[in-house]
Structures are given as structure tokens and as C-alpha cells.
């Protein structure tokens, strides 16, 4: 009686009008492509055949008794392939006939459940409001009752028999259907396309039946398949207990009842009906899963886990010198940003820490790191998706990028440009199935590309840290912000709980959260978006990283809040001197905050420039087009210059320049071969175009 969540399918295309039959056949094709589904369908076909043609298929009359002692409770033999039961009846014949009861009860009870449950769910979901709240409470109460108890009660009331079995099991499942129909109706009802239909004047009844109901069909089919299996289990349990159908009627559960009673005499009797039940239920579940997968389309494509290279194993010590983990290192006045204590377990902290007086904490701050050399250097980086089958898909190609100490570098790109994948490969946070194919990521001159989890742990937080887009999702909702903020302080700085708390409050205060000490006890949902992002920034800064990667860190915020958070990042850079890689799609954010900017398009960096230079004299046609297309609050132009077409998706990048297909200056030469990144620009005509690309 599992409750599978309704699948998040983008389309239940089987319901499309006949004209779009290709959609329905696509689903069928997807189902038939799953080998397990075919086996399941084949088994169910056998069961249906049994039920329909039982009279022909069964070798014996299932009701024919034979009380001769050597005919009772026999094991498998040539005459009786599966032996005989306590009345000398042929077990195989009883199993074949038992398919009738199983399918009748299975389908019948699910039909009853749907007829009761779906209208209730539709009504509750579509009405909403108070009636929904009260009705849902009822549904929940009823659904919480043990199903078997409901069945017992119905049988106690109505007595035994096929109709009461169907009703009994149907009542167990009806609230399941009600709950599902309600949830889907409710979620569809609040969607924009329903509003759009209303605005077009479409009638409410038409909205319910034509727009909402089709969404229900897919999940209903899946749920019905799975619950039919469950119904067969419950039917067999009731028959096993002797309160299903009359004991003479052949049923799988009834056979098991006999098997239980005669277990000591004929143990074999338990296996044939038991295995038939298991296979049938499994088949129904598999059909449900197969339909689910087919509807979900290619979303659940399997991926090959990317093997991490082991080459970097021992190199970590040279990247981050580990300090003496003895207590003295902590008792001595803390260095301003202590070197990370890599291998210390937070739990196994020495007692000395706890006795450490709080006032020994130094003031918050970091010596700006003005040592020469770049903090980060990315060379020839390729990142690719590796599906379980099919060719690898490049996501990021030949990226070269350096970030100086204390520098703010913008990474500008539209969606699909690969900018977030680049950021994640630097952080070593690539999703499964995506990996660095080649190239180097030099942090302080040490290659960290493809490093293992353990090696990266020492670098993360202390050398490199990150702030992500959605601040609410970026904090664990069930832990206080204090706990989350203290985590890196304790891991990296080896602070005691008390010390970490004091430092956490200082940090929170520094990023502009008022009443910081008390707010440590609050949960993320008690913060506004802007304030939550400040907390996330504090977590990133806790162990004094030299480079912070801000991945669309201000994009989800309102303009005034965005400006404040950007100003905060600038202030913190001025104070602590860390470098920032600011990933954004917003030209304004680049203009306000960055020292240099790298423009990314379809997986490649097309141009790197000082920020003023990029705005005044873009060298790549894409940069120029992007600047021109930006509607401004200053200049008034009648029409915005546009870029025709759209960003090509990963996997369908053209040979040669990725932008050539949309570029006003493209020539045949642009599509001939991959364009090299020369002198900070990736364009074969960069030199000749330098005079043509002027900003309005």
C-alpha cells in the first residue's frame, strides 16, 4: 500500500487528440523499450488468459474432491504437476481458476475506490478553501485507519462474498485516490495556464474537464496498476484467514490457508500460490513504474558515475600546510585567520578548547592578502556530461581564466552558457555524471581539477568558498543559522563551541544582521531573502577564504536588496582582500561591481576585458550585441537591437564559432574550425571588427 508520488511528467501525451498520435505512440514506445515492463506485461497476459479460459486450460475440475489417502496433499507428480490439496483437488487447476477471483477483486476494488475517491478529490481540490480543509482532514483520518481493520469491519457488516470483498478493499484505497486527485487538482488549479484560460473566457466546467482532468489520467493509471497489486495481496490475506470467499471457491489465498494448516505434512503447498501472488503483484507494480518512467520521458536517464582521478591523492599537503593539531595551537592567541586544521574531527575536540576563555578571541578581521601571483588560474578546461549510453556531451570548452588576489572578476553569460558548470568545476561540486575532461584548475599554483572529496575539504572554506543564488534553499531549513555558521568555524579553525558562537555572532554582525547574537538561534525561514543571503555570505567567509565564488548570488533579490548585498560584497573585499568570481547574467551587476569581466557563450569564454573596456569597446560581436540589447534607464531608443535566434544547446554546438549562426559579422571562415582564444578574445575577425563594434 505504498503511495507513489504523482510523477512530475511534463506531458501525458497519450491523451492528445488522435491527430497527435505520435505522442501516444511515443509513450508506448518508451514502455516497450523497458525489458522488465515487457516481462511484466507478458505475465499479466498469462494471468488474464488463465482467468478467461480457465475451463479450457485447467487440467482438472477445481472442485472435484478425491479423498483417497494417496490423492490428498500430494507433491508434484506427472498427473498433478503442482500436487493436490487437502481434498485431493488439483492445485494447478485451482491456481488457474484462482486468477478469476484475483483479477475480479483486484480490478473491481480499484474501480470502486476510483469511483468513490476521484470525485471527492476533484471536488475538494477544485473548491479549495474551508470545505477543502475540513474534507481533507476527514480523508486523512480515514486514510490513517489500518486497511485490514476496515476490511474486517465491512465483512462483519455485509458478510462474505465477492461484492463485499470489492467494497471492503475499495474502501481501503478510495482515500488514496481522493488524496491524489485533490493534490493534482489543487496544484494545477493554481497554475498560470489556468489563469490564462480564465482570461480567455473559458468556462469553469471546461477548465475542470479539459484542462485539469487530463493531468490526472497518467497518475491515475499508475496508481490503479499499483493498487490492483495491493488489492490482490489483501484479497489473498482475507481468503487465507477464511473470511474472503467460501472455501470451496478456488482462490490463491485460500490455497495458502490450507498450506498453513497442513504445513507440517506438505510444505510444498505454500510455494505455488505464494509465488503466483508475488509475480502478479510485482508485474502490476512494474507496469505502474514503467508507465511512470515513460511519462517522465528522458528525465531519469541513467548516468555513468564519473570516476575521480586518484592522481592528486597525496598532493594536498603541499597545497594547504596542515598545522600542529595539538591543543597548544589553539591556546596560543589565534592567528587572525588560523591555518586550517584539516584532519581534526569536530567531535573529538580536546578539553583544553572548552576551557579557553572567550576573551582570547582576536577581533574579527583578515590581513588583506597582497602577495603577488594569481589566486586562480584555469587553463584549457573542458567539462562534459557522460551519459550511460551515447557520446559525451561537452558543457564547457577550452576555458582560460585567471583571477588575481583581491580582484572581482565577473563571469557574464545567458542561461545555457555553462557559467554555473564552470563555477561548480572550480569548486569540485559537479553533479554526478558530469566531470572535468581535460585542463587544469590551479589554485595558488596547485592543480585541484578532479581532486577527491577529502583533498578538496581542506581547500574549501579556507581557500575557496561559495555563495549561491537562492538564499533560502542554500540554508538548511531545520537547523538554526547559528549551527550552520559555526560549522566551518569549528571544522577549520578548531574553535570550541563557545568560541565559535562568539565568532559567529561577530561574523553575522559584520555582514549586517542586526542583533546578531540572538539571531543565531533563529531558523532560516525567520529571515528575509536579503538577510538570508547575508547569512550565506557569513558562512562562506567564516574560515577566511582567498576566493569567493558568487553564483548569481544577487539574482533572486529585489533591486534595493541586490544593491545592498553587492555593496556588502564590495565592502568585504576592501576589508579582507579576498578575490570574488561574480557569476551573473545581469550587465548592471557587472557594471556596478566587477574589476574585470569574462563573457561566456555556449560553453566558451568569448572575451575577457577590464570592465570599462568591455563597456566602451567590446571586441567580440556577441558582447557588443548583448550590450546593445540591454534596455537602459538612460538612453531612449525606439527599437532595441536584437540578436536573432537563440543560444544553441549543449550537444548541438556548431563547429567553428558557436556564435556564428547569430552573428551579423559572420563569414564562411567563422564556421571552418574551432576558434582559438587569442589575446583575450575568441573571434577570427576580432582585429578587423575593432572599429565596427561601437556601442550606441
Amino acid at each position, binding site marked *: *500500500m*505504498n503511495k507513489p508520488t504523482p510523477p512530475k511528467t511534463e506531458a501525458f501525451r497519450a491523451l492528445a487528440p488522435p491527430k497527435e498520435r505520435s505522442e501516444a505512440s511515443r509513450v508506448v514506445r518508451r514502455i516497450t523499450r523497458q525489458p522488465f515492463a515487457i516481462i511484466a506485461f507478458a505475465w499479466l497476459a498469462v494471468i488474464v488468459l488463465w482467468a478467461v479460459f480457465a475451463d479450457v486450460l485447467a487440467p482438472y475440475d477445481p472442485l472435484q474432491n478425491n479423498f483417497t489417502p494417496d490423492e490428498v496433499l500430494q507433491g508434484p507428480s506427472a498427473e498433478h504437476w503442482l500436487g493436490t490439496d487437502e481434498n485431493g483437488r488439483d492445485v494447478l487447476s485451482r491456481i488457474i481458476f484462482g486468477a478469476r477471483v484475483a483479477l475480479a477483486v483486484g480490478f473491481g476494488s480499484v474501480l470502486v475506490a476510483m469511483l468513490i475517491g476521484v470525485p471527492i478529490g476533484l471536488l475538494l481540490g477544485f473548491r479549495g478553501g474551508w470545505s477543502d480543509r475540513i474534507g481533507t482532514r476527514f480523508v486523512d483520518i480515514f486514510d490513517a485507519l489500518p486497511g485490514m481493520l476496515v476490511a474486517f469491519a465491512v465483512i462483519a457488516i455485509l458478510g462474505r462474498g465477492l461484492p463485499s470483498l470489492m467494497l471492503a478493499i475499495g474502501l481501503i484505497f478510495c482515500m488514496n485516490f481522493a488524496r491524489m486527485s485533490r493534490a493534482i487538482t489543487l496544484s494545477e488549479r493554481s497554475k498560470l495556464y489556468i489563469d490564462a484560460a480564465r482570461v480567455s473566457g473559458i468556462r469553469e466546467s471546461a477548465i475542470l474537464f479539459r484542462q485539469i482532468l487530463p493531468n490526472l489520467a497518467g497518475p491515475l493509471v499508475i496508481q490503479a496498476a499499483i493498487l490492483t497489486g495491493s488489492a490482490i*495481496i489483501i484479497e489473498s490475506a482475507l481468503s487465507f484467514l477464511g473470511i474472503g470467499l467460501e472455501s470451496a471457491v478456488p482462490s490463491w489465498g485460500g490455497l495458502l490457508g490450507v498450506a*498453513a494448516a497442513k504445513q507440517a505434512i506438505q510444505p510444498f503447498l505454500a510455494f505455488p500460490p*505464494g509465488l503466483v501472488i508475488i509475480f502478479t503483484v510485482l508485474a502490476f507494480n512494474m507496469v505502474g513504474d514503467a508507465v511512470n518512467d515513460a511519462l517522465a520521458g528522458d528525465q531519469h536517464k541513467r548516468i555513468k558515475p564519473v570516476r575521480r582521478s586518484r592522481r592528486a591523492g597525496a598532493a594536498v599537503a603541499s597545497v594547504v600546510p596542515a598545522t600542529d593539531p595539538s591543543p597548544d595551537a589553539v591556546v596560543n592567541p589565534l592567528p587572525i585567520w588560523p591555518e586550517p586544521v584539516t584532519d581534526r574531527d569536530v567531535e573529538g575536540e580536546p578539553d583544553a578548547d572548552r576551557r579557553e576563555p572567550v576573551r582570547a578571541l582576536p577581533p574579527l578581521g583578515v590581513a588583506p592578502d597582497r602577495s603577488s601571483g594569481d589566486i586562480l588560474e584555469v587553463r584549457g578546461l573542458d567539462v562534459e556530461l557522460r551519459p550511460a549510453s551515447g557520446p559525451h556531451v561537452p558543457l564547457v570548452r577550452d576555458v582560460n581564466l585567471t583571477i588575481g588576489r583581491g580582484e572581482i572578476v565577473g563571469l557574464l553569460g545567458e542561461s545555457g552558457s555553462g557559467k554555473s558548470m564552470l563555477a561548480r568545476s572550480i569548486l569540485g561540486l559537479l553533479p554526478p555524471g558530469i566531470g572535468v575532461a581535460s585542463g587544469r584548475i590551479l589554485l595558488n599554483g596547485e592543480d585541484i581539477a578532479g581532486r577527491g572529496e577529502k583533498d578538496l575539504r581542506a581547500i574549501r572554506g579556507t581557500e575557496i568558498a561559495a555563495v549561491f543564488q537562492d538564499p533560502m534553499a*542554500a540554508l*538548511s531549513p531545520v537547523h538554526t543559522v547559528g549551527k550552520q555558521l559555526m560549522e566551518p568555524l569549528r571544522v577549520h579553525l578548531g574553535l570550541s563551541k563557545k568560541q565559535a558562537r562568539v565568532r559567529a555572532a561577530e561574523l553575522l554582525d559584520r555582514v549586517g544582521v542586526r542583533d546578531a547574537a540572538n539571531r543565531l538561534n533563529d531558523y532560516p525561514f525567520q529571515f528575509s531573502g536579503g538577510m538570508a543571503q547575508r547569512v550565506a555570505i557569513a558562512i562562506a567567509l567564516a574560515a577566511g577564504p582567498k576566493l569567493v565564488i558568487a553564483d548569481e548570488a544577487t539574482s533572486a533579490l529585489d533591486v534595493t536588496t541586490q544593491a545592498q548585498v553587492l555593496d556588502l560584497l564590495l565592502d568585504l573585499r576592501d576589508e579582507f582582500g579576498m578575490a570574488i568570481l561574480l557569476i551573473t547574467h545581469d550587465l548592471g551587476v557587472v557594471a556596478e561591481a566587477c574589476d574585470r569581466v569574462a563573457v561566456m557563450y555556449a560553453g566558451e569564454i568569448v572575451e575577457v576585458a577590464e570592465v570599462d573596456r568591455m563597456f566602451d569597446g567590446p571586441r567580440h560581436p556577441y558582447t557588443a550585441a548583448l550590450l546593445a540589447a540591454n534596455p537602459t534607464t538612460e538612453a531612449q531608443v525606439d527599437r532595441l537591437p536584437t540578436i536573432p535566434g537563440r543560444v544553441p544547446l549543449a550537444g548541438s554546438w556548431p563547429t567553428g564559432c558557436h556564435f556564428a549562426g547569430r552573428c551579423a559579422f559572420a563569414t564562411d571562415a567563422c564556421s571552418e574550425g574551432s576558434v582559438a582564444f587569442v589575446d583575450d578574445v575568441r573571434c577570427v575577425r576580432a582585429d578587423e571588427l575593432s572599429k565596427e563594434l561601437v556601442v550606441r
Partner: protein
Amino acid sequence: MIKLIATRLLLAIPQMFIVAMLVFLLVYLVPGSAAAVALGDAAADADEVARLEQQLGLDRPMLEQMMTWFGNALHGDLGTSLIYGRDVTGMVLDRLPATLSLVGAGLLVAMVIGVGLGVLAGTHARRPVDRGVTAFSSIMQAVPEFWLGLILILVFVIQLGWAPVVAWVPPAVDPAKWAQGLILPALALGVGASALIARQTRTAVASALSSKYADTLTAAGVPRHRIIWVYSLKNSMIPVLAASALAVSILFGTSLVMERVFAFPGIGTLLLSSVISKDFPVVQGAALIVCALVILVNLVADISYGIINPKARPQ
């Protein structure tokens, strides 16, 4: 905290009331006269039917009877068995230890296997381990628990003789034998529910690990084992708790069957014989007490949910 418990308790009261109402209505829903049905073939004698109707209170107006029934139920009086003439409350309470032992042990098995496998699969999402666990839970959901019980008896009692024939030993008599006797029934009962919990846990852990907050902590250098066991686990517990509450309801239902398999003198066997013999007061009393237990478990789950999830606490 007190406010949390109070509000949840307040919600449980109407819930209990509705369930009690359904249980009370049971006799009225019987087609024809419940008394005649209860007497079965022997119902030829109209006097006897009338006497039973009086005993069941069917001769009085329903509303009046309802008040009496509720009043008695509140005092712990659930009526008298038609067959044995004993008070129903006593009969059910006598059988409570066996049922509670079975469900409790089953839940333990379900949680340990379910959460263990779920975490294993969730932390190895889309790898062979995960596929193995998914296959296991799919198969276990298709295996009828009572059949698994039969097979366990066949193997461990009849063939190997490792377990005693009589599984139930009251804990007061011999705690060691009580625990020993519970092993097979609890396994048979719990493995099915563990599949449900494993699925939920797997999904919850996998999504918690691929969440943005896991990224934030990872990027801050927090070790993976801490992210799994401290952060992901607490976040995952919300859906796992819901699944466990559902599992308890399922376990109570399945235990009714399992008691028969292992010959446990629990509420299930009592209920079964009462259903067969149409002993309505016993059916009502046993159903009411099982429902009350399920509601109690849901209440505990609801409160724990509020403790884990700060947003669910009354502000």
C-alpha cells in the same frame, strides 16, 4: 513545545470522536437486523431476536443509544460479548500485550532495515547499490507478509527446528523467550513495511544531499559525513517520519493477519473470530482500541514532526 503538544492533542480529539462514531454506527449499517444476523440460522425464534436487540440497544432511538454508548466508552465500558458473556474491554486488554509486542518489534525491524537501506541507497544514488536496494524494496512490496511468515515457519521451525513452535510467551513469564519468540513474526511483519520506509528515506536522503544547502556546507569545507548524518538526516526525517507513521498503521493491519500465522493470542485473532461469529460488541471494541492506538501513534508522529520542523511549530 507545550503549545505544540496542546494543539496537536486538540486536533486528535475530534479525530477520535469521528472514528468512534464510525465504530458505533457499525451495528446500524448491517443490512436487516444486526441481532438476526448475529444469531444466524438460530434466529428462528422472534423472542430471542428481540432479546438480543434489547441487549444491543437496537430497540431504542439511535441518538439515545449513541449517548449511552459514548458515555460507557468514556468510562472504559465497551459492552459485553454476545458469545462469551465477558466484558469486551477486559477481553481486548488481555490480548493487547501480544499485539503491541508484535507491532513494536515489527516497527523496530522496519525502521532499522528501512532507514539503513534508505540511507545506503540515498548516499549512493544512481549507483549499483541504489539499484540493488530499489530492487529489494520492489520485491518486498510484492511479497504478502503472511506468506513470508509461513515460509519462515517452514524453514526455521519445521525444517531447522531453531525456533519454538509456540511463538508467544508473555514477557512476564519469561522475557528472554518472549524476545526470542518475537524474532520470526517481527521479521515477517517488518520487512514489508521496511520497503516503504527505505523508499522514502532513499528519496529524502538523495534530495537532501543534492540540495543547495548541502552545496553551501560542502563549499565551506564541512566534511561529507557530517553533512550526511547531521544535516541531511534531520531534513530527511520529515518525510521518513510521515512514512513511519503510515507504516505503523499498515503494521497494525498486517499484524491482524500475522497473529493467525504465528498463533498469537492478540487482538487480530480475537477480531477474526468475532467477525466470523458476528460478535458485534467485540468487533466494535477491538476496532475502537486499534484505531485509538493508531491515532496515538499519529499524534506522536505529528508532535515529532513539529519538533524537527521549526516551521510546523505554532508561532
